[in-house]
Structures are given as structure tokens and as C-alpha cells.
């Protein structure tokens, strides 16, 4: 049977991808960002997932303002890196586990999560940056080390789904994965955040104390964390900090009790606090 072994929380700042793609990760500005992922890359090699269920948000790439699904599951065979205005990232095409993805879609819909199914989709930095930081530099002619099932969550137009909804979706994702009859090591990634505001006069907001509490709660009291209202994210963690609701999908898919094996926090990457956590099911 397929099983979920671990969850990863991780920011997906586009500038991190640019730093990797332009080979400037050793510069003093970037070095502390990437230092915190050295252990993670070792951990990924040791724990080698077959499939990553990756929760991210599309930044008006696959979905512009004309169509805004709250949850959209990638069911296509593959997903090409998109041109986001400065050309596609030089990283491999993302390959899906199509049978598992469609199994998850069916299971979730019967569990009353009304998903949008994507049979054609390009993916942006929201999806590829977490893969890059966790796997390291992989060129466009190579392959990602595992298959990836993307779940795109709307966090651009208010309201994003609630933390509670995301947490419960994670539970349903787990039920779906564990009822799939193939021996697979599956990891769930929740991406985005942490505190950041990209827009208008309050841009640059960072709230280290709030972020730290969020990471503590995520590990120790995920149900409480899932009840944080949107206005608290917006006010305390910045207008774009609301992305962190996506981490609750990851947490909901794990055991109630987890082991935190790694944490990394650094300010800044561009406008953003970089946060990262690895949680293992015990």
C-alpha cells in the first residue's frame, strides 16, 4: 500500500529559484538561505520518496483572473515549467504519477472536497522552487528524482480556503493515498510563506516571532494552528503571508504526533522570511 512517511514545509520565493538558476547561491546574501537546506538534501537522499504530493499556489500562471479554482489537482502526465514573464526556469519537466493522482481526485470528491481536475497545466516557481531547494541543481535535460502530484490552492484572490479546510483536506488526502494499492513512499509538501508582504506601502513586513510560533504550533498543536483566522495571517504575517494556509494540508496528512527532524528560518530572501521544516511520521 502507498504510505505517507513525512511532510515538508518550505517557502517558494521566486528569487531563490533565480539564485540557483544563475549560480549565485554562494554569494554572502544567499549563502545562509541555502545553508539551511544542506541537511534537507541529505535527508531527501536517505528517505527517497517515490512520489511527492506538492501543495502550492499558482501565481496567475496557469490560472489568470478568468478562472480561480480553490483547489486544483494536477492529473496530467507531465507539467512543463511556465514562462512567468522572464522565460521558463531551466529545470526538468515535472512528471506525475497519473494513476495515483486520479485515484486521489476520485477519493477526495467522494469525500466531498469538490476539486478542479487539471489535465493540462504548466507549473510556476511555486512548485519548482521547493523541488529545487530540496533536491539541488538539476538541469532541464535531467529528471527530477521522483514523481510529483501538484495541488494548486488559490491564495491570490481573497478568501483563500480556511486553515481548517486545508487541514481536513490533508486528512482526506492521507485516506486517499493509503487506499492506493501500490507500495509507494509518499511525502507531502506544503509550500509558501513565511511572513511577507509584496505590495503597497507596508511591503517588506516580516514577523519572526509570529513565524516561529506558527512553526511550533504546526509541530505540536496542529489543530489549534488550523484555526488561525485569515485576518491574523494578513495582519501579522503580511498580505502574502496567508499562503501559509497551505502548510495545513501537509500537516493534516501526517500523524497527530510527529517528529520534527529539521527546521530552518532566515530573513531575507528578497521580500520574504524563508521558513522550512521537516516532520516525520513516527
Amino acid at each position: 500500500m502507498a504510505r505517507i512517511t513525512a511532510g515538508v514545509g518550505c517557502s517558494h520565493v521566486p528569487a531563490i529559484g533565480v539564485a540557483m538558476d544563475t549560480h549565485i547561491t554562494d554569494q554572502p546574501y544567499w549563502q545562509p538561505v541555502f545553508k539551511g537546506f544542506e541537511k534537507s538534501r541529505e535527508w531527501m537522499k536517505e528517505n527517497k520518496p517515490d512520489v511527492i504530493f506538492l501543495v502550492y499556489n499558482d501565481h496567475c500562471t496557469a490560472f489568470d483572473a478568468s478562472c480561480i479554482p480553490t483547489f486544483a489537482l494536477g492529473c496530467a502526465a507531465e507539467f512543463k515549467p511556465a514562462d512567468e514573464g522572464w522565460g521558463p526556469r531551466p529545470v526538468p519537466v515535472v512528471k506525475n504519477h497519473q494513476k495515483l493522482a486520479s485515484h486521489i481526485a476520485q477519493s477526495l470528491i467522494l469525500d466531498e472536497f469538490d476539486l478542479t481536475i487539471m489535465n493540462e497545466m504548466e507549473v510556476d516557481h511555486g512548485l519548482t522552487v521547493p523541488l529545487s531547494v530540496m533536491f539541488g541543481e538539476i538541469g532541464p535535460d535531467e529528471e527530477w528524482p521522483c514523481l510529483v502530484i501538484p495541488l494548486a490552492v488559490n491564495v491570490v484572490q481573497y478568501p483563500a480556503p480556511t486553515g481548517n479546510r486545508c487541514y481536513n483536506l490533508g486528512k482526506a488526502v492521507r485516506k486517499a493515498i493509503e487506499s492506493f494499492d501500490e507500495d509507494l513512499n509518499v511525502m507531502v509538501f506544503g509550500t509558501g510563506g513565511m511572513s511577507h508582504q509584496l505590495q503597497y506601502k507596508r511591503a517588506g513586513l516580516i514577523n519572526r516571532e509570529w513565524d516561529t510560533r506558527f512553526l511550533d504550533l504546526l509541530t505540536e498543536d496542529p489543530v489549534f494552528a488550523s484555526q488561525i483566522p485569515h485576518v491574523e495571517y494578513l495582519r501579522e504575517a503580511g498580505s502574502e503571508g496567508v499562503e501559509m494556509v497551505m502548510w495545513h494540508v501537509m500537516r493534516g496528512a501526517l500523524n497527530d504526533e510527529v517528529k520534527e527532524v529539521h527546521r530552518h528560518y532566515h530573513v531575507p530572501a528578497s521580500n520574504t522570511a524563508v521558513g522550512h521544516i521537516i516532520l516525520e511520521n513516527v
Partner: protein
Amino acid sequence: MGMKKDYEDIPGTFVFDADRSREGYHLNQFCISLGKQVNRDAFKAGEEAYLDKFPMKPEQRQAVLDRDWNRLLELGGNIYYTSKLAAFDGINFQNLAGLMTGMGVEAYREMMVKGGRPIEGNRYKSEWGEEE
């Protein structure tokens, strides 16, 4: 009347809700079109002619031509969209923030390196001497 908005008292911030989305629709659709090279080429060849394809309000169109980044947000633009226009001009997210905050690129970058804008004094409009 719609629902009361509990996020309207956050200073220096536009929450991109359905009202803003509706107001900014054609402006945002113009911006996002610049994600494609063929459209970037067309816009480069003639901004006015390209803008004719998008039925936005005259003040929105003017803000595009003026690259008035804050005005674009005030008129329903969203940062994930307007950042495409900035990218067209060779301005990345961080430098765009430097412009929107009025701090300038260098001072903004310096603030971020030192830990970012603190939350203290930045939670409520009243702390900025603004009305809610």
C-alpha cells in the same frame, strides 16, 4: 451590503478580494498577458495599440503608461499581476517594493537585510494616523 471586512484596518495594504478583483479585472488581464513572449513583443512594439485590446478604465490605462505602481493597486490591480508589467520593465519584486514603499531600492534592500519591516506599529491604520 456585503459582509463587513475585518481586514480593512490594516495599514498600507490592499486585500485582493472580489470587489478589487472585479474593479481590476481588465487591468490584471492586461498585466498577466505579458507573461507570454509574443505579447511582450507586441506591447514593446506599441504600448497604446496593445492597450486598446483591454477595455480598462482611462485612469487604469494611464497608470499603466505612467508605471504608477501604487495607483495600479489603488485601481484594483494585484501585485502578482502588476509584477508582470514590472518584469517587462526589468524590475524584480524587491525593487518594485522599493518603489511602492517610496523608500527607494537601496534603502528598501537595506531594511530587508536588517530583518525587514517590524510588525510593531504596523498592525492598524490608527498606528499610521490613518482612518479606518
